[in-house]
C-alpha cells in the first residue's frame, strides 16, 4: 500500500482556536488519521517541525522575526499550504496594532520591553509566501477543513465559499436582524461558512469570516449610519476581527476620513 499523505498543523501568533477546530472533529479526526499521517501538530502531540509534508495548515499571523524565518522553511517543505482562520488569512484582530505606532505600547505594558522580539506589524501568511488556499473564520469550522482535505486527497481543487452570510441566514429560516431589529449586521459583506451563527442567536454578524466576493461596504456603512451609528462606530464595525483584509481595511479608512 502506498504511503499515506503527510499533513502538518503549524501555529504562529494566534489563540489556538482554529487548531481546536481539528481537535473537536470527534470521530472524523480518527478517520482523518487513517487517511493521512499527521506528522506535526504540537497541540495534539506529534512534533516534527521540519518534516516535508503534502498538506500544511497554518494558524496564526506573522508577528515576530522568528515567524518570518520559520514560515519560509514551512513553505519550502510543503506541497500545498492552507491558511486557517482570520489570523493566518488576514492578520487577525492583532493586526489592529498596524494602525498604532510601532512598538510604543510595549513600554507601557512590560518593564523591560527590550526582551520582546516583535515585529511592528501583524500580517497574513500570504504577505510573505505563496498560499494555495485560504480558509476564513474566527475560528475556521471543521467542515471546511475536512472538505479541503478531502478534495486534496481526491486530487481536485477545494471549492471556495465566498457568498454572503445573508444567503445562509435565509436558508436557515433566520429572521434578518438588520431589518427586524435595526442592528448593524455585517452579514451582507461577510463570506459564508459559519451557517449564519450570530443572526441565528439574534445578534448582528461582526464579520469574522472576512469579506465576501463583490462587497459594497459603502452602501452598508451608509445604512449603519441610518441606524444611528456615528462614523467612528462604522469604522469599528469594519476594523475588527478582519481589519487587515483589504475590503474591510479600505472601508475603515474611508469612514475614518469622514
Amino acid at each position, binding site marked *: 500500500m502506498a504511503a499515506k499523505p503527510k499533513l502538518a498543523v503549524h501555529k504562529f501568533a494566534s489563540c489556538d482556536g482554529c487548531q481546536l477546530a481539528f481537535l473537536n472533529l470527534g470521530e472524523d479526526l480518527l478517520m482523518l488519521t487513517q487517511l493521512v499521517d499527521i506528522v506535526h501538530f504540537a497541540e495534539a502531540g506529534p512534533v516534527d517541525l521540519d518534516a516535508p509534508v503534502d498538506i500544511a495548515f497554518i494558524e496564526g499571523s506573522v508577528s515576530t522575526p522568528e515567524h518570518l524565518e520559520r514560515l519560509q522553511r514551512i513553505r519550502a517543505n510543503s506541497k500545498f499550504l492552507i491558511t486557517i482562520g482570520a489570523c493566518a488569512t488576514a492578520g487577525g484582530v492583532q493586526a489592529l496594532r498596524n494602525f498604532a505606532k510601532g512598538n510604543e505600547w510595549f513600554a507601557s505594558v512590560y518593564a523591560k520591553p527590550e526582551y520582546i522580539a516583535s515585529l511592528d506589524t501583524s500580517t497574513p501568511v500570504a504577505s510573505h509566501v505563496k498560499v494555495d488556499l485560504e480558509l476564513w473564520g474566527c475560528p475556521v469550522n471543521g467542515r471546511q477543513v475536512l472538505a479541503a482535505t478531502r478534495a486534496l486527497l481526491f486530487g481536485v481543487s477545494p471549492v471556495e465559499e465566498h457568498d454572503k452570510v445573508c444567503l445562509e441566514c435565509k436558508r436557515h429560516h433566520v429572521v434578518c436582524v438588520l431589518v427586524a431589529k*435595526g442592528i448593524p449586521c455585517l452579514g451582507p*459583506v461577510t463570506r459564508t461558512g459559519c451557517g449564519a451563527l450570530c443572526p441565528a442567536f439574534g445578534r448582528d454578524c461582526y464579520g469574522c469570516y472576512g469579506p465576501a466576493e463583490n462587497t*459594497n461596504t459603502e452602501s452598508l456603512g451608509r445604512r449603519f449610519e441610518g441606524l444611528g451609528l456615528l462614523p467612528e462606530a462604522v469604522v469599528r464595525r469594519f476594523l475588527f476581527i478582519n481589519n487587515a483584509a483589504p475590503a474591510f481595511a479600505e472601508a475603515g479608512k474611508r469612514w475614518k476620513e469622514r
Partner: protein
Amino acid sequence: MPGNYLPRASFQALLETLQQTGYRCVGPQLRDDAIVYDTLRHVGDLPRGIRDLQAPGQYRVEKSDCPRFFAWANGPQALKPLLFAPQEFLWKTERAADGRLRFVAAVPDAVPTAVIGVRACDLAALRLQDAHFLKDPSRDAHYAARRERLFLVAVHCTRSAPTCFCASTGDGPRAEAGFDLSLSELDDGFLVEAGSDTGRGVMARLPLEAASAGQTQTADAEIAQAAKQQTRKLPSRNLQAALFANLDHPRWVDVAERCLSCANCTSVCPTCFCHSEADQPTLDGAGSVHARQWDSCFTQGHSYIHGVTIRADTRLRYRQWLTHKLGSWHEQYGRSGCVGCGRCITWCPVGIDITEEATAICGDTTHV
C-alpha cells in the same frame, strides 16, 4: 343550507379537524420579532392582535388589543420553504463491495401539511412555482411529493402593508382561487368558503353557524379597503419590452451603487426558484450526497461558466433580477414573476424598492 360562520371561540375545531384528518398544521406565529410559519399545535400559537409595520428595509411588530389572528400583512416567508426546501439532498452515491457505484434517490420527506393563513399573493406565487417545478419532463419529485400533500387555508387580507402592491399586479388582496378553504376574518369570527372537494369535506365537520348579511358585507368592505390602502404599483403588468429597451439606462448604475448583492430579495421572493447543486463527498471518499440549496442571480456562482463569470458586478446582477422577474418571465410562464407581496422591499437591508426602480427604468407606462 348549513352556515358558513365559524365563531372565533371555535377556531381550535378547525385545527383539530385538520389534525384528525392527518395533517400537520403550519401557520403564522410571532418569533424573533417577525411573523413566521411554523408547526401550529394550538390556536394560542397564532399571533393574536399582532400587527406588522413594514417599510423599505424595515420590519417591526406591535401588539394591540385587536382580537384578530390575521391582522398583519405578511412575514419574510410563507409557502416557498415548505415546498422548495432551502437545503436538501436529492440523491447519494455509495460504493458497493464489488467496487461499483450505486446511486440511491433520497426519499422526499412529505408529511401531509395544512397551512393556515395563506395570503392571496402566496397563492399566486404558488401557481408560478407549480408551473416551474411540476412542468414535464423535468417535474421535481421532491416538490411534487410535498405539493400533493398540501392543504391550503387562505385568509383574505384586510390590512395591507405600505410595501404591498398586489392590487396592481392583480394577485390580491382577495384570495380568488387555489385554496381548499378560505377565511374572511371579522372581530368575532370567520366566514368560511370551500375551494375544493377536500375543503368541502373539512368544512362539513366544522361547528358552523349561519352568517348574517351584515357580516358578509363587512368582510367584503374590509378586503376592498385593503386594496385601497395600497400606494405602490408597478408601471405596467408587462414591462418586458420596456426593460429590454433600456438595458443601458443609467439607473442600473445608480441602483448598483446602493445594492449589496446580498440575495435577500431573491431569497424572500415567493416566486424565485434558483438553486445550485453540489456533491459532498464523505470523508472516507467512499460515497457522496448530491445536495441542492437556494441560490440567487446575485451570487458570483450563478453566472459562472468554466473560467468565466458572466455577471461579475452588481449592475449586471441587479439587471438580471429585474429583467428576468418582470421581463422574460412573460415568455417562460405567461406572466410577470412578481405577485406584489412587497417582501423584496421590506427585507432588502438597504431598502431598495422594486416598484421605484422599475418606474425609473421603464418610465411611467400607463397601467394595464
